[in-house]
């Protein structure tokens, strides 16, 4: 059942798909549409829009921190694996970091599907017990005077980190700012460098 060879996995999945299609359980066109959605449409550029809007619109930011799901839905990002969104803000006092130790929960509507490292044992094991060492490996140094707050997504609440706006972007508009926002910063493993 646990065949590591790529060819064997390709065959195994092809056979499974053929059978499920033959049984009438799945529509192959729906599979294509699902793949297309997450491969090309939904991704961290969604979350970047949320962040950029929050940086440039104080009212929006207040709504976002008060009710993440509703404020994110204003921008059209809703649904699967983002039904219950909570946005946590990085400040000079608090640095937030998100992990799912038990599986790999991740806010799909705003970040797309998670990268392999987020789902693999090292991150899931270490982010809660030695988060500062993990952050250092990402090149992110958090001072000991800053509360490092790790969010373990054990329930259906999904977390998005609102990173600190980098210096030197005071006159940038939301569209330009969105271009600076990285996936890693919205997970909390990185900061956004000044441009």
């Amino acid at each position, binding site marked *: *059942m*646990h065949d*590591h060879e*790529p060819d064997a*996995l390709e065959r*195994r*999945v*092809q056979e*499974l*798909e053929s*059978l*499920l299609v033959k049984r*009438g*359980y*799945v*529509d192959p066109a729906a*599979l*294509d*549409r*699902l*793949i297309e*959605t997450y*491969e090309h449409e939904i991704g961290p550029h969604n979350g970047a829009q949320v962040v950029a809007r929050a940086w440039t619109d104080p009212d929006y930011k207040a709504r976002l921190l008060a009710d993440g799901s509703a404020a994110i839905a204003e921008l059209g990002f*809703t*649904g*699967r694996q983002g*039904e*219950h969104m909570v946005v946590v803000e990085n400040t000079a006092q608090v640095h937030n970091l998100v992990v799912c*130790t*038990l*599986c790999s929960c991740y806010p799909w509507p705003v970040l797309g*599907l998670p*990268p*392999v*490292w987020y*789902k*693999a*044992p*090292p991150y*899931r*094991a*270490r*982010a*809660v*017990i030695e988060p*500062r060492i*993990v952050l250092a490996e990402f090149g992110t140094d958090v001072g*000991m005077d*800053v*509360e*490092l*707050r*790790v*969010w*373990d*997504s*054990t*329930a*259906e*609440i999904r977390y998005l980190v609102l990173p600190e706006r980098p210096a030197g972007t005071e006159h940038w508009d939301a569209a330009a700012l969105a271009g600076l926002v990285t996936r890693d910063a919205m997970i909390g493993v990185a900061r956004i460098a000044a441009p």
Partner: protein
Amino acid sequence: MNGAHDLGGMHGFGPVAPEADEPVFHTPWERRAFALTLAMGFTGQWNLDQSRHARETMAPAAYLATSYYEHWLFGLEALLAARGLLEGASSGLRRLDADNVAQALSTGGPTARETASTPAFAPGDNVRARTIHPTGHTRLPRYCRGRVGRVERLRGAHVFPDSHAATGDPEPCHLYSVRFAARELWGPSAPTSDTVMIDLWEPYLERA
């Protein structure tokens, strides 16, 4: 269950290894295994907690040696076998058609539920994560069991994963965001400044 999936606090896995310019999928089979899992999820033959539990039943050595989508594939095959869906065609399964994909995804599957019960705890209360070791699916990580935290926020009532996985019964329970000092979880070597926030259902907690 105390399975290999309950990874929080484990040592020995080596460094986190980010991949430059990582693609969404790495192989064709990953694409299809992902989509098949989502599409079969829409048939209503099992719920999200049951599909998580199916992945957790993978043998520990295999779980740790294989990739995320191999876990998904294993779970999907296990559920199909358990429901008898591979032997012969079952009728009456909901089918996700291509035209409905966008709508289905944007609706999602909220787990918040109404409940008549009042929450047992309020923000500021000290609570202890119970020392329990359920053999079935649970979302109470081992690393917080027996440890004392503080309720930060009520999250409303949500489907309770333990019963939802075991019997399909959603048994909605109040969910709390609980703050644990890193020192309480890991001992005196942890920085005093660090905290871990865990979302825990009421049956996982007792007053401390």
